């Protein structure tokens, strides 16, 4: 009996052993395969994610698409979108007063699944509703260049327009004339940055006794309208010997007007932004100082900020100021100014 018991007991034990061993081996093998599959899937998944498909979409909606200022913005945006692997579309209305088209573009961008809209407002107030609506649908808003009256904006990247206006004013005050009769040619009254620049300009001039602001006009943001407006202003007020103007198109208009009227010598022109033509005018003497912004940086930083928002990375600041430089005939071919003034193609 005793021996039988022990035999049976031994057999039980061995059965236990084998059962446990086999179970354990199966378990380990299963774990191993699952682990390897997990790793492979992970690695492949990451790569495929990087390659195609789930690229994030950023829509850039600007005031205009034709000026070299905006082309430079687009160049910067393109550089950033390549670097950060984003899909980007760039669009803007044909004229710089058309906020309805802009609002429509915002809606379209939201419908197309944009995660971030990089926006430059035509109208400080009229664009508000469309931007708020987009923000409500979860789209993040980054403003570049020109602000919109909305508190849904995550980040604003622009020239410090007031400061730029003051710089323009300082350029005027560097004149050695005894009397400075100033005419202002500004663009659309509803555009925030034009108003800020003009305010900065006026504040800078306020304390100088030589200065008298003779006239201030608002024209459409086109060369033709500006040319017409300037000629009219100069006819009405022939005493004007300083003209300040605040964006690329109005600068060209003023430049052409001066050229037409042959007042290059007599009149000091402080203009904004640069393109091939305005640089030529600066060199030739129709324009005496250019306040040059950094549109490339605006585009680049705007898209970089969009990338940070998409990936929930910290955004450096809610307000980023890009650099502004004053270019005159004397310093235009300095090495640093060359870099600012001339786009590298």
């Amino acid at each position, binding site marked *: 009996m*005793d021996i039988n*018991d*022990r035999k049976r*007991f*031994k057999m*039980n*034990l061995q059965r*236990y*052993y084998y059962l*446990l061993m086999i179970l*354990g081996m199966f*378990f*380990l093998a299963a*774990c*191993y395969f699952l*682990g390897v599959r*997990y*790793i492979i899937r*992970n*690695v492949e998944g990451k790569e495929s994610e990087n390659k195609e498909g789930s690229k994030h979409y950023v829509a850039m909606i600007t005031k205009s698409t034709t000026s070299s200022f905006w082309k430079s913005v687009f*160049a*910067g945006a393109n*550089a950033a979108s390549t670097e950060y692997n984003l899909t980007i579309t760039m669009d803007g209305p044909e004229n710089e007063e058309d906020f309805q088209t802009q609002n429509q573009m915002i809606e379209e961008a939201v419908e197309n699944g944009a995660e971030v809209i990089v926006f430059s407002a035509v109208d400080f107030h009229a664009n508000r509703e469309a931007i708020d609506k987009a923000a409500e649908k979860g789209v993040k808003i980054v403003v570049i260049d020109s602000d919109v009256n909305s508190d849904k904006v995550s980040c604003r990247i622009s020239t410090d327009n007031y400061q730029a206006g003051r710089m323009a004013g300082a350029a005027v005050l560097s004149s050695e004339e005894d009397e400075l009769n100033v005419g202002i040619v500004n663009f659309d009254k509803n555009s925030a940055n034009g108003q800020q620049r003009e305010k900065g300009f006026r504040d800078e001039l306020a304390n100088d006794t030589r200065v008298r602001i003779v006239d201030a006009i608002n024209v459409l943001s086109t060369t033709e309208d500006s040319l017409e407006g300037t000629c009219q202003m100069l006819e009405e007020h022939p005493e004007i010997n300083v003209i300040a103007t605040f964006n690329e198109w109005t600068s060209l208009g003023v430049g052409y007007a001066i050229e037409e009227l042959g007042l290059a010598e007599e009149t000091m022109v402080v203009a904004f932004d640069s393109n*091939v*033509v305005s*640089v*030529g005018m600066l*060199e*030739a003497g129709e324009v005496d100082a250019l306040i040059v912004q*950094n549109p*490339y*940086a605006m585009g*680049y*930083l705007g898209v970089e900020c969009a990338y940070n928002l998409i990936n929930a990375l910290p955004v450096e600041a809610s307000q980023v100021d890009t*650099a502004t430089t004053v270019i005159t*005939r004397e310093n*235009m*071919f300095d*090495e640093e100014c*060359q*870099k*600012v*003034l*001339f*786009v*590298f*193609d």
Partner: protein
Amino acid sequence: MRKGKQKSRISISILMTSVVVGLVLTALLAVLLFSAQLYENSVEQNARISSEQAVVQVVNTVENYIENMAEDMELISGYMRNSEEERDEFFQSFMEIRSDVVAVMTYDKEGALADCWSNGRKQKEQILKDLSYIDSSKEGVLSISKPHVESLFEEYYPWVVTISQKMKDQTGKDLQVFMDIRFSKITHYVDDVGIGQHGYCFIEDTDGNLVYHPQQQLIYSGLKEEMTKEIHSLSDGSHTRSNVIYTIRTLENCNWRIVGVSYVDELITGRVENMMRICGILLLLVFLTAILIGILFSRMFAKPANRLTKAMGEFEKDAENFQFVPVQGTREISYLSSSFGHMVVRIQQLMEQVREEEISLRKTELNALQSQINPHFLYNTLDSIAWMCEEERTKEAVEMVNALARLFRISISKGHELITLEKELQHAQSYLKIQNYRYKNQFTYEFDVDKSCLSYLCNKITLQPIIENAIYHGIDRMVDEGRIEIKILEEEDAILMVVTDNGVGMSREQCAEILHREAGDRTGIGIKNVNDRIQIYFGEEYGLHITSELDVGTTVEIRIPKIQEGDYGHK
């Protein structure tokens, strides 16, 4: 206390699990650190090599390009000596073919612009500043300028690099020939060179000025910085600064340097992370395995060992009634278990043997006591008989002698311990008869016997000591006539013998004492002896029970089992 100690010790399965996990963890960590180091080194090595390869390719391409430019320059220089028409014609076609050449200029010794050819560009009437002109160094040596903006033409400001050479024209005058080039061919090539995921190449001159950078615009806009100053101080070759590898090569035919920038960490960290993940999974597997082993171990070893320990503890507490169930487990455990089983059986056998030996020893002792005859009793009785003979009470003397003889015969009973109740009663009667003579009928006695009980067995000399006690301690001190009643009753599974006297009685303490006191000199076999014998033979549940009341009397109940002749043998 012992239990507490046991608890504080670690279970072997936990120990086993933690040892396995610990060992594997250490080994894995060591391997991981070692291989990560190795891997990092080899990755860095690879990165250096690929960076160097890329840079060398760029160097070759740029050198070729510059060589082409030098050849062009030679060609142009050759045409400088030709007639004006031939020269204009040549430049016309040259400019058309070479779209990357913006302009070719000649300057006189003082640096005044002499001639300028371009592809249909309108030269400015008044040149504010001529950025292309640099007072180039030696004659016959090709020099390359820093990149600058072309400032000679109206509304045309491309970024160019100027190549210049001093020479003499056909008349022997000093002449400087300049060529402004948009170096798009090189830039596109440099743009396309990638090293690793984010690495790139750029060109600087030997003074540390940037010639071309793929992210030139970013740098010019102040959004990105290149460590040009630091790189400028580095010699040709590969240099690692924190996690960036700079590979630098200086061109042979000009003062440009090609710099390759690649990042080590992005290559490594990704893969090391992957490795970490694999290790994590491995660790998890090991942990699970260890747990499995732990469970297995506990099944095989720890649990049976515990069961065995518990069994031992139980055995310790109650050795007699312990029933051992074999414990299953590993071979070692089963050996232990069976050995313990054998030990238990052996110990129980030994215990039984010891008890039996003790009982037989006691029996022998008691038997020896029984066979003793109280000398006082014998002497007194014989004295009484002598008196009877002297007084010629022959009949009574005969009866006395007969009673005494019966008493002794039954006492001896051929050495048997158990005798029938009938004989025991005869023994008691004989004793009472003798005592009654001796006490001159101071007491009366009466038997009330259930006849069916007579054939049952009982220990011999059971009633006599009780009666003796009743006479000596109860009736002897009485003034009135004493009375002793002896009853034999049959109960369901026992026989009850009751001896009642009406003597002085005993206190409760005396009752208790009497069962524990050894027999004295005067008395024969003590009451204790009776009780002991009954209990040794039949067990604890049988024996004497005494109830007594002072001045009323004493009742002794003796309970024995129902045993017939021949029944006792196997007990």
